[in-house]
């Protein structure tokens, strides 16, 4: 059943995808509103799916690839809603919806989920580790979306054409604030998540293998994240330079995610 609800959510998110495509060219009209509401509806189904998974297994097994993807996309949607509540703008949807759709799509394909469950692992810590990292990822993704929007808005303002897009995107400084705040929000989660990871590794293997590709990439990603915050704080980097850095951090995060497949300690076992 959870997979069914997830697929229903996916269909709803497809409307969100439509919003992302249409909002670029048209002003807020009926189609846009339908698409937005469909995306909200999708969140509800998504939540039902997650809740059911939890009830069935007695707990939310985050250590499954499909579940993590599902949870990540749900978290991104939650952040999207928070941004909407604070700034009254749905424009991050232009970037967020395609991502959410993609993540949910992968999660909803019917393959058997992999489980990351080495023998003797401390389960609680593992779950905490994954939950924290996912929240950090979601924040990083929203921040990256904001960077893209910043670039779009900056270009629109520079080109001086009163395009429709210009009038629908939030003000430049507001976008900047969304990006910076989600970066600030995400950083502690990411840091604590990595720390929790080391705890898990310590407890399971008695040591942390820093030469493991997954761990190295994760630390690298964290370093770029830190650099992003530092340049912003000290030199006020924003716009193009910040967007490149955010893109770098995002790429690192993707690679670190993918590194599961060639990491020795972060191996997923066939369930």
């Amino acid at each position, binding site marked *: 059943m959870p997979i069914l609800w997830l697929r229903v959510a996916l269909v709803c998110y497809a409307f969100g995808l439509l919003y992302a495509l249409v909002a670029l060219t048209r002003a807020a009209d009926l189609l846009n509103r339908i698409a937005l509401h469909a995306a909200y509806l999708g969140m509800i189904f998504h939540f039902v799916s997650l809740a059911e998974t939890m009830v069935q297994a007695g707990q939310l097994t985050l250590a499954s690839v499909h579940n993590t993807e599902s949870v990540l996309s749900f978290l991104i949607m939650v952040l999207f809603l928070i941004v909407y509540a604070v700034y009254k703008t749905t424009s991050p949807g232009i970037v967020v919806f395609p991502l959410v759709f993609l993540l949910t799509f992968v999660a909803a394909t019917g393959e058997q989920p992999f489980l990351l469950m080495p023998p003797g692992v401390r389960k609680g810590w593992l779950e905490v580790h994954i939950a924290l990292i996912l929240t950090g990822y979601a924040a990083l993704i929203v921040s990256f979306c904001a960077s893209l929007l910043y670039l779009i*808005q*900056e270009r629109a*303002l*520079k080109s*001086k*054409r*009163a395009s429709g897009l*210009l*009038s629908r995107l*939030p*003000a*430049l*400084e*507001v976008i900047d*604030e969304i990006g910076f705040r989600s970066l600030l929000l995400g950083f502690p989660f990411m840091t604590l998540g990595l720390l929790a990871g080391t705890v898990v590794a310590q407890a399971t293997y008695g040591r942390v293998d820093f030469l493991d590709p997954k761990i190295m990439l994760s630390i690298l990603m964290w370093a770029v994240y830190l650099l992003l915050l530092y340049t912003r704080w*000290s*030199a*006020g*980097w*924003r*716009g*193009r*330079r910040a967007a490149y850095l955010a893109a770098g951090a995002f790429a690192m995060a993707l690679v670190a995610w993918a590194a599961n497949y060639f990491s020795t300690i972060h191996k997923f076992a066939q369930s």
Partner: protein
Amino acid sequence: MNFQLIGINHTTAPVEVRERLAIPESRLPDALKQLRQHPGVDEGLILCTCNRVEVLAQTRNGSADLRSFLRDYFRLDPAGYEPHLYEYREAEAIRHMFRVTSSLDSMVVGEPQILGQVKEAYATARAVGAVHSQLDLLLTRAFAVAKRVRTETAVGSSSVSVASVAVELAKKIFGSLHGKHVYLVGAGKMSELAARHLLAHGAESIFVANRTYERATQLAAKFNGQAILFEQLYETCDRADIVITSTGAPFAIFRKEHGELFLSRRKNRPMFFVDIAVPRDVDPEMNKLDGIFVYDIDDLQQAVASHVADRKKEAEHAESIIQTEVIRFQARLQTLDVVPTIVSLQDHLETIRQAEIDRVRGRLGQMTPEQEMAIETLTHGIVNKIMHTPISTLKTAAREAEATTLVDVVRRLFNLQEKDKNAKATKSDGSGAGN
């Protein structure tokens, strides 16, 4: 009625061309004198704003070559601006003046500043005697038309002036204007208005720098702002989020290196330059810097293109008002044209009456004052009775726009040609009292 107009505006020419034809306020009286001395020009008016340069003339019999006036005055390569010029005559010139004054031809349709600018141009031209009779009538009428358009249509109601467009753009960059600082470079009317708008939308403080420090202090005092010595402009400018420049400097005050300096001092927080000066105060290269947004007067126009569309309907209504006003004004000018004819007709008959009385007086011999009076009354009565219908017919015809033919007929019937010159002298008096 021999109105002729030549001009260049924001729709026909980019700011690069307009800034070359700009005449500073201080040199306007001289320009007007030169215009009046131009062959064929009787009266003249020059309107020079950041969006337009218009030369309006009332010409003596026929036409004057206003293009050659521009060539003589500016001594620029005509190929650079002549393709952008437009020319209007008679009714079209009247219509154009009405449209300009009513803000229908403005960059931002309905903006209120243009009326004041036309009034200033009129005052300057009057002061040097370049405007005295027909142009005076035209301009006075134009002000009345502008008022009518303002009260009868919604064109000016949600008026988007350059200032409020600047506010809108500032909001696109900064979101809220609360806590933002505004820097006025040059203390002109426009920048004052822009400052007022920005403050009304929450901007926190105002700095004013002006070539004359006194003027800066005056303006700063108005807004509880801070006046700054012009020499300290570059050291202090990074404090501002929004910079409005409107100096009369012939070269750019802000160049790319200044922008880089400001950005590094501001930790790359964005800056918004509103350049309403013509010639421009901010080097367009500045816009290429990350975090600096430069809008010159032409860019502001594009930013409001959408507003213009919203007001199209109201503008159509305004155009129809202008149309009727143009016809009415022409009719009025034609009424003025029949006045000299009426005057010379009256003169003509009076001369005949006097001559006839003198001729018969000898034959009548000595008369009592009562008899004298009776003859006067009798002859006056006859002349007036005869005159009454032709004169009222002429006056009515004048309003129907068939006056020219009728005036011709009357003049030929009574053989009034040679008295024409005398009549002209009384014409301006008549026009002042008439209607």
